[in-house]
């Protein structure tokens, strides 16, 4: 939508937009951004990286013809290029504009493709910032996936930002936490960037992106060893930013490692740690079952197994309940654990299906404290199945 010039200069419009949409959810902000005349002509800029698919999916749902700008720095991972094509096709995005640096500029400034080694800022400017500036020229506003939790420089991010009095930058996911991103991708069954599973939670150009170790900040692999946090696209006051990675994001990561075990008597720490093995391993006594595992193959192999953990990839995926019931019918008498996205409202179902306990993330334990699980710890009462089966 072309913006209504009578709505004033960028700064005033940004202030009014932030006031208007302060309490809106991400999808609502995005919907309004696509149609509010105070925003104007708008494009989504996407790296098709680790978390990009969230905004791409939202755009596909709201208006698949929204222009999507993808910057091919010609230094990207092959996986990113194939993932870009796959996602665009699957979501039916109809206006993806792939932009690249001008060949003449590349020939002049980085003929041997080694500029990133001597001056990564100059490389970012050449391959990203300049092509982006050109691509955004026809637009009044652009959408980014930046979030507050991603670092100190982003800690006070608003939905709408004034970019040098020229354009509005829209950040619909500004207030999302890591768990929101994860839940959204799970619930909408969105394809993941193939490198995420290989230890790259944040993905940029191949030479400047490394693996991240457990407990590290997700963006720690970007420009590792350099005092660089932003790539050149996200300018602060028109300049590149330098500075340490935010501490609060690190803390989140550490806490995330400690899951909570829910039983009829309360929350507890996990006494098993991560000590689970594949059911294919002969002699394993603690088994991890995927949501699509065939429990029949365990027939006759349950002797000596202490505990079985069944994964719930999303709370709306009820396969695990039938898997648990089948294991009980096969005579399994050890501990049965439901792990993953199981909510308090499902606790009685889990118990009735044969589970002894539920393993949840600390995030979920904070959001749904013990009282909410306790409310369904009365799973033995009001149970039609018990009544129909005549079981004690």
């Amino acid at each position, binding site marked *: 939508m072309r913006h209504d010039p009578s709505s004033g200069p960028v700064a005033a419009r940004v202030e009014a937009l932030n006031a208007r949409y302060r309490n809106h*959810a991400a999808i609502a902000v995005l919907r309004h951004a696509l149609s509010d005349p105070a925003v104007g002509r708008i494009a989504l800029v996407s790296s098709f990286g680790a978390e990009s698919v969230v905004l791409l999916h939202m755009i596909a749902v709201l208006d698949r013809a929204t222009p999507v700008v993808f910057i091919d720095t010609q230094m990207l991972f092959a996986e990113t290029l194939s993932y870009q094509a796959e996602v665009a096709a699957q979501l039916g995005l109809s206006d993806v504009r792939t932009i690249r640096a001008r060949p003449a500029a590349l020939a002049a400034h980085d003929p041997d493709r080694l500029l990133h080694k001597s001056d990564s800022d100059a490389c970012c400017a050449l391959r990203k910032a300049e092509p982006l500036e050109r691509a955004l020229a026809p637009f009044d506003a652009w959408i980014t996936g930046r979030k507050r939790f991603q670092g100190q420089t982003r800690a006070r991010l608003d939905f709408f930002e004034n970019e040098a009095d020229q354009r509005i930058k829209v950040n619909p996911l500004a207030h999302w936490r890591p768990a929101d991103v994860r*839940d959204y991708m799970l*619930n909408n*069954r969105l394809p993941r960037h193939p490198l995420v599973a290989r230890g790259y939670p944040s993905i940029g150009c191949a030479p400047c992106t490394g693996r991240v170790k457990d407990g590290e900040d997700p963006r720690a692999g970007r420009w590792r060893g350099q005092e660089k946090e932003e790539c050149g696209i996200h300018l602060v006051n028109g300049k590149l930013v330098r500075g340490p990675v935010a501490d609060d994001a690190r803390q989140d990561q550490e806490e995330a490692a400690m899951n909570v075990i829910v039983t009829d008597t309360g929350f507890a720490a996990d006494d098993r740690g991560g000590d689970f093995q594949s059911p294919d391993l002969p002699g394993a006594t603690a088994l991890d079952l995927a949501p699509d595992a065939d429990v029949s193959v365990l027939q006759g192999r349950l002797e000596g197994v202490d505990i079985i953990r069944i994964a719930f990839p999303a*709370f*709306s*995926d*009820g*396969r695990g*309940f*039938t*898997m648990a*019931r*089948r294991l009980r*019918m096969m005579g399994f008498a050890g501990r049965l654990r439901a792990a993953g996205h199981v*909510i*308090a*409202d*499902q606790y*009685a*179902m*889990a*118990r*009735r*299906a044969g589970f002894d306990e539920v393993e949840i993330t600390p995030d979920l334990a904070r*959001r*749904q404290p013990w009282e*909410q699980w306790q*409310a369904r710890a009365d799973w033995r*009462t*009001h*149970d*039609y*199945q018990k*009544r*129909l*089966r*005549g*079981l004690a």
Partner: protein
Amino acid sequence: MYEYGEFDTAYVRDRVAQFRAQVERRLDGSLTEEEFRPLRLMNGLYLQLHAYMLRVAIPYGTLNSRQMRQLAHIAERWDKGYGHFTTRQNIQYNWPRLPEVPDILDALADVGMHAIQTSGNTVRNVTADHFAGAAADEVADPRPYAELLRQWSTDHPEFQFLPRKFKIGVTGAPNDRAVIRSHDIGLELRRDAAGAPGFRVFVGGGLGRTPMVGQELAAFIPERDLLPYVEAILSVYNLLGRRDNKYKARLKIAVHEHGIDTIRALVDEAFEERCAQFSGIDQELLSGIAAQFARPALEQRGVAPYHAAREADPVFRAWADTNLADHADGAHAIVTISLKPHGATPGDATAAQMRVMADLAARYGHDQLRISHEQNVILPHVHRADLPQVHGALKEAGLATANVGLVSDIIACPGMDYCSLATARSIPIAQDIATRFEELKLEHEVGPLKIKISGCINACGHHHVGHIGILGLDRAGVENYQVTLGGDGSETTVIGQRAGPGFSADEIVPAVERLVLAYLDLREGAEETFLELYRRLGAQPFKDALYPEQARRRRDAA
């Protein structure tokens, strides 16, 4: 009919309390919108175009006058004074406010009703033949089995998060009035050689965007195997059903992709496992339930007033000819009250009308009412001598439309007037068709004809099984109505065939009129119904009537 015992009452109350807490936990952020969504859906609460919509179950379509009065009370107190009866024996309220929904659920619990599992990816309200317990052609009353299935499916711990919704329908007669071949599981009561009751089982039926007719999974299972067998089907579906694409997640797709023989082998294997879970106590519960469905003691007295009214009053006679069905007892009749007055919204009833129907049931109908999947209300046991009074009271309430089974007895989904999924209006089309045929004064001459209208490809108006089906689509921002012909939802279920290009909103009513006039021209006599003629002559003469221009060109070329 079945009265809630202590267990059911305590369960429903507890469930309301749970939902009340869930609403609060949504508001305080404990539940995300995505987590809350299936929880409200499994309690019957939808978010529609203008507001929330609450869908209340009328299990197997049976209710008493007290319950009907409470539905009227809810309509007045919390809604806009009316309710909408649906094609799956539910009633929908279109304007409740979220914070008040728990209060509505409490009011329902007061009379042994609920909205549990009327939506969501769960086993939905179990539906049954609306003439159950009264029809002359019945093998056995299907409702005790439907009630047993209701108890079994309610809050079943394994099956609250299925790949997709799951519908079960039961019929007690070989004449299928419950559209069972369009259900995920269709059950037909029959008896074995020794006379013991059991079921023929169909699976994988469904309408929607990929209509399929259910296939026979078992020719006969004895009644004691009902729960373990149905549970076996559900357990196979829960693990096998697709979760990657909601449009391919129904059981019908699994049956289509894996084949009925593979499904049967898996179900048989699961059935072995499940049998041991049931000790037989469910059969004791079943006989207790069945006793509650015993037919009321019917009065034996003369039917002379009925015949006298037929002689004297042509309006009564016309109504009796269309709206009465044979009762197993010759002195009684099954009355269908049409909720399809010409020009009104199919299936809507005002609170005042609900009270009139409740009063009639209490006074003349052994306190029983039924809701049919054709969106009408039934008084199942009315003595023929009382019919003139019943008809008189219905006339005063605007409920005496004599059109059951005729052109204007149309099934229509809410369409774009209410539904956020709809791509076209359906109610106004139904109203215009009914009004037009009322002007032509032709419907009684035309006889049995089922027109069904859906406002989008999800097919809530069952257009696939309409003798004439109408599907409203959006073509570049303009409503466009496709016509299907020859569909049938009975024991001879057939999916209708698309006739050709669609019609605009202005053209669709004249197109239907041309179809019906062509039928009158071509039929051999009044005994030959529209569907029979279609089966005898095929689609071509009907296509010629729909598209006269093409027919002319074809003739010219010949």
